[in-house]
């Protein structure tokens, strides 16, 4: 199959949309996505083994913890047999995997409710928060970066370069508490804690997203500057295209590839930071669910939540790779 190589998107924007090439590109992308989807179960298997092993390194006897403080030795032994904890490790993993495939992650020692139920309750809240935080970082950061690239050494430019270091230095929980103090307690514009309306979402999402605004802006800016100095931008201008068209179609599309990479990495980072923001704003998400479980060593909850976090990270990486192919047909993954 002739692979579409060395073709710049911006040389001819219509390239990827020409019927012939579109079919070819779709076929190439199709096989790539197919190959990734085949390796996906292998990766998930690896993740499940890792999570299983990590949880077996946790000190303490899960059977005794499940039995509670008043249990007799016989009760503990009975629980050990019921959970299969007396079997060899490989056999235990087999049982774990079999249950996992059936969508059974065990149950909480504390509430006796299935872990899947807890995750189903809390994961949407975390996802909502992370996506909102990501949107704030993007919606503020990317245009700011484009603007400062188009006006080098202007006010926005200087602001972006100097503010980025503030973003990476600010502890999320302190920022969250400050925002809560100002906008909820003093001004009373939004409710301080909890989840419900879109007004509840504003402060947690800002806390999560704001530290990344300047970083995104800086990244967009440097990539835009690189692309803007290329020949095809001059060509596009010489053909008589207006600046907005050149920036949006020719420059931005080429500058967006490294940005997507970082977006993918940062999405994972935001997901990891969610536990802290959820604690500050009493947001009923999965990060808090996990940390609470860690406090009381609720093994199956810890195991389940870590697994879901890990799978999310794998899924995000897959999504990033697929998005690459869409924005840049040069990438053929052969």
């Amino acid at each position, binding site marked *: 199959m002739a692979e579409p190589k060395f073709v710049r998107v911006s040389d001819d924007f219509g390239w990827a949309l020409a019927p012939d090439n579109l079919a070819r590109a779709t076929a190439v992308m199709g096989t790539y996505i197919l190959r990734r989807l085949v390796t996906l179960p292998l990766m998930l298997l690896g993740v499940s083994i890792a999570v299983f092993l*990590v949880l077996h*390194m*946790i*000190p303490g006897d899960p059977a005794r913890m499940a039995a509670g403080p008043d249990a007799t030795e016989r009760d503990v032994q009975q629980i050990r047999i019921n959970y299969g904890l007396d079997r060899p490790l490989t056999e235990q993993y087999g049982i774990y995997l079999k249950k996992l495939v059936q969508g059974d992650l065990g149950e909480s020692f504390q509430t006796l409710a299935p872990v899947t139920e807890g995750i189903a309750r809390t994961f949407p809240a975390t996802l909502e928060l992370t996506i909102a935080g990501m949107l704030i970082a993007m919606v503020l950061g990317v245009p700011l970066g484009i603007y400062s690239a188009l006006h080098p050494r202007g006010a926005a430019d200087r602001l972006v*370069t100097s503010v980025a*270091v*503030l973003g*990476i*230095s*600010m*502890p*999320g*929980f*302190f920022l969250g*508490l*400050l925002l*809560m*103090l100002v906008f909820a*307690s003093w001004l009373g514009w939004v409710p301080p804690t909890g989840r419900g309306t879109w007004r509840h979402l504003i402060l947690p999402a800002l806390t999560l997203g704001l530290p990344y605004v300047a970083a995104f802006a*800086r990244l967009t*800016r*440097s990539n835009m*500057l690189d692309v803007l100095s290329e020949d095809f931008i001059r060509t596009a201008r010489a053909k008589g295209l207006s600046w907005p068209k050149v920036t949006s179609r020719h420059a931005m599309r080429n500058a967006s590839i490294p940005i997507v990479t970082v977006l993918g*990495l940062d999405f*994972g*980072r935001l*997901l*990891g*930071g969610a*536990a*802290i923001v959820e*604690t*500050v704003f009493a947001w009923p998400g999965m990060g808090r669910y*996990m*940390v609470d479980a*860690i*406090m009381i060593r609720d093994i199956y909850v*810890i195991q389940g939540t*870590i697994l879901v*976090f*890990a799978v999310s*990270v794998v899924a995000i*990486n897959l999504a990033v790779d697929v998005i690459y192919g869409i924005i840049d047909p040069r990438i053929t993954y052969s």
Partner: protein
Amino acid sequence: MKTIGFLWYLLRRKNYITLVAAFVTITFVLAAVCAPLLYDWDTATRVSLSSALLSPSTIHPLGTDELGRDLLARIVWGARITLVVALVSVTIAMVLGILIGSLCGYYENWFTGGVMRFMDFMIAFPRTLLAIIVVTVLGSGVLSLTLAIGISTIPANVRLFRGPVLALKRRQFTVAAKALGARDLSVLFSHILPNMMSLVIIQGTLSLAEAILIGSGLSFLGLGPQPPTPEWGAMIAASRSHITSHPHVIFAPGITLFAVILAFNLVGDALRDYVDPRSRKAI
């Protein structure tokens, strides 16, 4: 001597913000080292409800917290814990990162390739989450917090330090050393690594900032040192219900934390320019 040279460089370049940052880091280290001379442990941890939530005064320069403990005493002792956790964790991450990274860069085969693939996978994983998992396994406390931060930084360091080794091992002086009969390890340690020292210093400074940030976050979640140990993140977590009525209990440790992290980041950035003038404000 080198510190003074660096400070003089900042002064000459009129980089006053970083100069202030350098003094913040020096004050932080001094406070951490001198904590037992300034306040005894008892002042920082003894509960006295009669003096709870006092505003700043001459006796308590930063006021007291909800259990009547002097905030300045707690912040000074907190600096000691923060510095120890950050220094030890960064040392772990740097030593292992440099070791694995340089070996993976020097020997390119299927095994080191596999190690790098694994590291790439770990880097995709959020660091806070990695650290939380390590704390889960080791239990909460100062030691496991330190290990958690250290271990979760290793993958990024491995990748960072592998790059220069890959480039340096093809340079003429390395090839010459090998031609003269130097052993692999001696080439690595006496010819390649000394050429990476500036990177090590810069990365070390920036890692300190990140270690303090992540450590305080884990402590805020309750996964770090347990009360009454004065850790800045844990202090904020414990006092946060009083934020509306007595904001100073949050502001005192919060601003200190932010200032110290910011200072290390600024100093790290300036060190990069100082050590390598070519990268001076690249963008």
